[in-house]
């Protein structure tokens, strides 16, 4: 029975789409309100909170000193974790990380990592012996749709305001984690047959596949991911890629505005 309701919802969403309308009245490429705050958590060396409509997520950055990988003796490393804990929605159950949470963490991680914005060499303390490990954790507190973009925005904002706690580890003076660029993710979901930006909870329940695009400062692609059931044509991708270019630029400015 639980699967019947989505079926009715799908019909409703298809009808709305045929009139170029959305469930909550937004235009096809409109975002819900996005509020970004940074540097808000005691004990995190970088932190950010994103409220995107009724979706709330936190990102926190911690550091520790680790041995470098033997094939990259002068490079620090990044580790990204994401937790879809039961706090965030009735649907989430306790237990080992779900495929959904693993995907979330890995897609956000790839967008940041693959943009090359972190100078891993700058995180070397003693070559071959000690490097900084950056530990980025995403914590979803309220899931009402599009946690990917909420998390990715919080993540890059937390990273860009993080301070490496060198004094606490007795390896010199604290310094700002320098990021050379600001990769931004935008996610599109097929709802009622066409793609929309920033799907809300109802659109996710009644929607199909989802495309996550991470773009760098120059508009280059750094990460793509298709999730969920559904297929797309090359032409459809071209359309959302163009939209993503504009929206990423807006979000990049917002992130920059929250750097002290």
């Amino acid at each position, binding site marked *: 029975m639980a699967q019947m309701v989505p079926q009715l919802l799908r019909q409703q969403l298809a009808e709305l789409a045929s009139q170029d309308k959305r469930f909550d009245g937004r235009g096809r490429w409109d975002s819900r309100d996005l509020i970004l705050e940074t540097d808000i958590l005691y*004990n995190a060396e970088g932190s950010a909170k994103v409220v995107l409509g*009724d979706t709330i997520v936190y990102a926190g950055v*911690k550091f520790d000193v680790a041995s470098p990988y033997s094939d990259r003796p002068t490079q620090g490393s990044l580790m990204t974790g994401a937790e879809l*804990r039961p*706090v965030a929605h*009735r649907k989430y159950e306790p237990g080992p990380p779900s495929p959904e949470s693993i995907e979330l963490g890995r897609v956000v991680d790839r967008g940041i990592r693959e943009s090359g914005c972190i100078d891993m060499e700058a995180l070397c303390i003693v070559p071959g012996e000690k490097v900084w490990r950056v530990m980025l954790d995403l914590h979803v507190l309220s899931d009402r749709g599009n946690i990917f973009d909420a998390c990715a925005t919080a993540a890059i904002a937390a990273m860009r305001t993080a301070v490496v706690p060198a004094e606490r580890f007795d390896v010199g003076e604290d310094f700002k984690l320098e990021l050379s660029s600001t990769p931004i993710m935008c996610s599109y979901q097929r709802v009622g047959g066409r793609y929309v930006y920033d799907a809300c909870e109802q659109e996710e329940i009644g929607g199909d596949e989802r495309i996550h695009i991470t773009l760098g400062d120059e508009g280059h692609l750094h990460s793509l991911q298709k999730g969920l059931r559904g297929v797309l044509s090359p032409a459809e991708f071209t359309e959302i890629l163009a939209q993503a270019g504009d929206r990423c630029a807006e979000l990049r400015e917002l992130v920059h505005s929250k750097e002290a």
Partner: protein
Amino acid sequence: MGGYGDVQLLREDGKRLDGRAVDEMREVEIKAGFLPAAEGSAWVKHGLNVAVAAVYGPMEAHPRKIQRQDRAVIDVRYNMAPFSTSDRIRPGFNRRSREISKVTAEALESVVLVERYPRSKIRVEIEILAAEAGTRCVGITAASVALADAGIPMKDLLVGVASGKIDGIVVLDLDKAEDNYGQADLPMGIMPNTGEIAFLQMDGDLSPEEYDLATEYNFKAAHEIHELMKQALLDSASGGDV
């Protein structure tokens, strides 16, 4: 409890390092209804601690074997976010969080009118976003407000408070340094209206007389926090924004 003695925690004027009197608690701020996806929720800042609680249910208890014929069970998860502490915490339950979750659930089952919901389950999720000593108490306070915000009937609001001992003196509401270098910690879950204790732990060293004084401090603080809890629930009911 460290009890090292090589760190002085009381100043010559009898005040504590952060200027508080021995029976003075840290600043507390409470919001009810913080998380849109939850059926009830709360945000509590207590000193530098930040805890969030969400409530889901009552819902069917499954697996069947956890069901109780005559009442609801309360399923608590106390969890520290990886970035909530000085050294990052690995995600997933550890022995400490499992023990706190167990005794917190039992405390909440003592105040919620669980008999009204036979065979059902109420999920209480406590997330510590920032930790600065006393998180289990802050979590209890947040969980109580979230339960009330979800409309779950209770005998009383349960308030989490702690006292302890530093430099041999009983004080209210230990902060991080006091927790690290003090000689005792006595966290309690207090029902301010009935004067009963639903949550009780203690470690360190307390004489019976010191225990009595620490308990007295805890009750005093519980009444103060109780007022803030009630106000937060009123604000939320009257549509106060978050």
